[in-house]
């Protein structure tokens, strides 16, 4: 596995996390703090261009220019390990770093733009390594999954069915760098297991895209919704679908009622980002940290039980250990 950092991290702001599911950012910060991961957020960082880029509006040169500016910000901030909460930010930044390192022409073109605009920025070749400086947040947590187990305070009912949706732009674009499998993706399943929960594992539509398809959601809505509804229907008996990308999250959480109506189905699936789940399982405040109030499908937190029982178990354990210590 590639080396995973736990410090000098720039938590990369995402447009869809900021404006649709801000609870993912507050949950990530909470979990990072609990795990002792050193990070910063830099408000000079711009959005990666991803939604515009994959809607064909941004050309590759402009997207790479924006990435080079954000890389310069990360390096000057002494936090060159870029960690994204969105799968598309991950793919956009990795592609840009590869281009800037391998393509002298574009690198020079961008450095000239900086110069001619009198902007004190530069991209030096290999200053950002696409594999060793750009990560998705799930990778940072995966590296700490053993420590994570000790921080889980909440217990959920055993009969909850949980499935995972592995974002395409994490798993499939730079597949040589993907942790936990590409054809049978499992990184989210492993993280769910670290929260003392089980997932349903493989299901037929596990690899299927969310269906947003960037432009498709807006100008080919029927096509987009067909793909999304197939996946939702395959998950009909699932209580929670775990996400790692705000665009996928939006496609399922925001459009589930629309799809239910159009296809004459009823769905019970709740949609939670993996960082929200982990923060929740660590006992974070639902309104002030996890931020479930921005979700369209209400997350029925009554499903979460036994918090007191869990605390009692821990107390009992502590007592036992104290007794042991006394005996020794």
């Amino acid at each position, binding site marked *: 596995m590639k080396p995973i950092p736990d410090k000098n991290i720039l938590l990369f702001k995402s447009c869809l996390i900021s404006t649709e599911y801000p609870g993912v950012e507050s949950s990530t910060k909470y979990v990072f703090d609990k795990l002792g991961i050193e990070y910063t957020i830099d408000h000079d960082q711009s959005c990666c261009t991803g939604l515009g880029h994959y809607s064909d509006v941004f050309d590759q040169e402009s997207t790479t220019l924006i990435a080079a500016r954000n890389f310069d910000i990360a390096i000057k901030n002494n936090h060159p390990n870029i960690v994204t909460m969105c799968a598309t930010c991950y793919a956009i930044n990795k592609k840009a770093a590869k281009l800037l390192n391998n393509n002298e022409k574009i690198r020079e073109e961008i450095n000239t733009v900086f110069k001619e605009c009198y902007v004190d920025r530069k991209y030096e070749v290999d200053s950002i390594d696409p594999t060793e400086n750009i990560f998705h947040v799930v990778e940072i947590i995966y590296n700490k999954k053993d420590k994570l187990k000790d921080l889980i305070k909440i217990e959920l009912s055993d009969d909850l069915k949980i499935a995972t949706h592995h974002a395409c*732009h994490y798993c499939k674009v730079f597949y040589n760098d993907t942790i936990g499998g590409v054809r049978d993706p499992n990184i989210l399943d492993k993280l769910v297991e670290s929260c003392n929960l089980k997932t349903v594992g493989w299901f037929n539509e596990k690899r*299927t895209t969310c269906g947003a398809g*960037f432009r498709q959601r807006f*100008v080919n809505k029927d096509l987009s919704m067909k793909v999304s509804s197939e996946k939702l229907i395959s998950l009909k008996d699932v209580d929670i679908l775990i996400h790692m990308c705000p665009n996928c999250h939006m496609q399922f959480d925001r459009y589930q009622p629309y799809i239910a109506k159009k296809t004459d189905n009823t769905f019970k699936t709740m949609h939670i980002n993996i960082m929200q789940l982990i923060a929740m399982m660590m006992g974070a405040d639902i309104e002030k940290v996890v931020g479930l109030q921005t979700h369209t499908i209400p997350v029925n937190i009554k499903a979460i039980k036994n918090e007191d029982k869990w605390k009692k178990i821990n107390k009992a354990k502590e007592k036992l250990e104290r007794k042991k210590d006394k005996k020794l």
Partner: protein
Amino acid sequence: MKVINLDETREKLSNKVLNNIKASHDLGLLRCVQCGMCTSVCPGAKHSNYNPRYMVEKVLENDEKIIENKDIWNCFYCYTCHSVCAVGNSPCEVNQILRQIAIDNGKEDEKLKYFASYGETFLDIGIGGMPKSFFMTLHEDIEGWLDFKAELEEIRKELSLGPIQMPQESIEEVRKLLNKMNFDKRVKRLKKEEKE
């Protein structure tokens, strides 16, 4: 017998694709064996006439008509084809390049104009998000979406999060840089063709 066209004054489409800035340096376009794995896993192919295997075949045959083929606009950019290709080709990447060539030729899908607002918002505030032109559709499709937008600032405060936007100085810097890259002209051109 197949006649090979030796007119080398015109660059072959496959070369154009391989030399495009978007093409990965190890893109296996010329290694394509037309196995059709890409089409078998493609969500666009499953539900529309888009066929990534056919698209690659046309590129290899130097058939430039594929650039104006409307079906190529049904690719989801999910990279599923890219992740299973046995020879390291990426129909998804080829598709993105063909669309860019179509845009450069002024032959883009006419619906692309609606997305110009992505670029406008980015030039205005340095952030993308949902395109303005679709706010009303989102409001109609998603119950409570606009109401939630009105509460966003307050919710973010409750979550102890910083500002959504960059400081004004950075917004201006990003705009200046993008203008130098002629991105503003591109957005204007896409927008101008908004005929409605």
